[in-house]
């Protein structure tokens, strides 16, 4: 099979487009969270969310990237996640939750187009994300 150059050009263009889209999400979020981390704001949000997140082995400050990922997209969440400098176990738990459930308003609208109820797709994604996070937290002994 001869490798044509067209897919290469298409792939590069799409890759650059995606990088540009994610840069627009990552850069502002990263900078805001970087400075927020130096103020008491993140601490307050963290302390409010801590009891809930403790169940799945996450510190309270993980609330912000989780909410950003669930409502917006993975890149925004990662922009907020990197400046927090969490451990590998915590990062893995967040990665499992967010790769399973992210961008929910938009993606649920997409699955509704298939004719599947919004409660069904929201329920299985949030339920599975929580269950998998709990399993990893309980199984993974640091």
């Amino acid at each position, binding site marked *: *099979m001869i*490798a*044509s150059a*067209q*897919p*290469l050009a*298409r*792939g*590069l263009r*799409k*890759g*650059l487009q*995606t*990088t540009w889209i*994610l*840069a627009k999400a*990552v*850069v502002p979020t*990263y*900078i805001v969270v*970087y*400075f927020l981390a*130096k103020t008491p704001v993140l601490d307050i949000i963290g302390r409010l969310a801590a009891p809930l997140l403790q169940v799945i082995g996450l510190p309270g400050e993980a609330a912000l990237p989780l909410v950003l990922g669930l409502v917006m997209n*993975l*890149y925004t969440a*990662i*922009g907020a*996640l*990197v*400046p927090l400098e*969490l451990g*590998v176990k915590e*990062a*893995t738990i967040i*990665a*499992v939750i967010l*790769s*399973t*459930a*992210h961008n929910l308003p938009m*993606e649920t609208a*997409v*699955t509704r*187009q*298939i*004719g*599947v109820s919004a409660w*069904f*797709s929201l329920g*299985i*994604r949030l339920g*599975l*994300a929580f*269950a*998998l996070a709990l*399993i*990893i937290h309980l199984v993974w002994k640091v």
Partner: protein
Amino acid sequence: MGILGALWEAVRGAGGTVLSIAMIVIPLMVVVEYLREWRVFDRLADRLAPGVGRLGLSGQAAFPLAAGAVLGLSYGSGLIIESAREGRITRHEAYVLTALLAPCHAIFEDTLVFVPLGVNPFLLLGVRAAGAFFLTLALIRIWQAIQGPGDPGASRRAGRTSR
């Protein structure tokens, strides 16, 4: 550290994050374009067809499943909507496909973006894919218990796809 120093630190950190994601996303998009050019998804679907039968899916459902798993939910959903409109997949199959794809799609992109955080990509994808698979199996059991005996996918199992 003054405000300018902090701002520089923040911008550098953000730029570094974008760069590390770009180094994953750009090669990935090139690979996916070649996979599409060489019709790998069609062949993957043919391979998947016998296996998806166990999930109550017909061979017709294998193509949107393979494409959605690799390319993403919007792409997979587009194919599912198209197949459903043309009557190639049933309502039950649409639910089974959503149970698989809603939690587990764009498996390369969604996995690799977490690598810069120190996450093991095999562990991440393994947990996510196994979770979606066993959840779907459990849902099928529940649907069968509600609807009584009989395989909902059986009636459409006859025609195999050769897309």
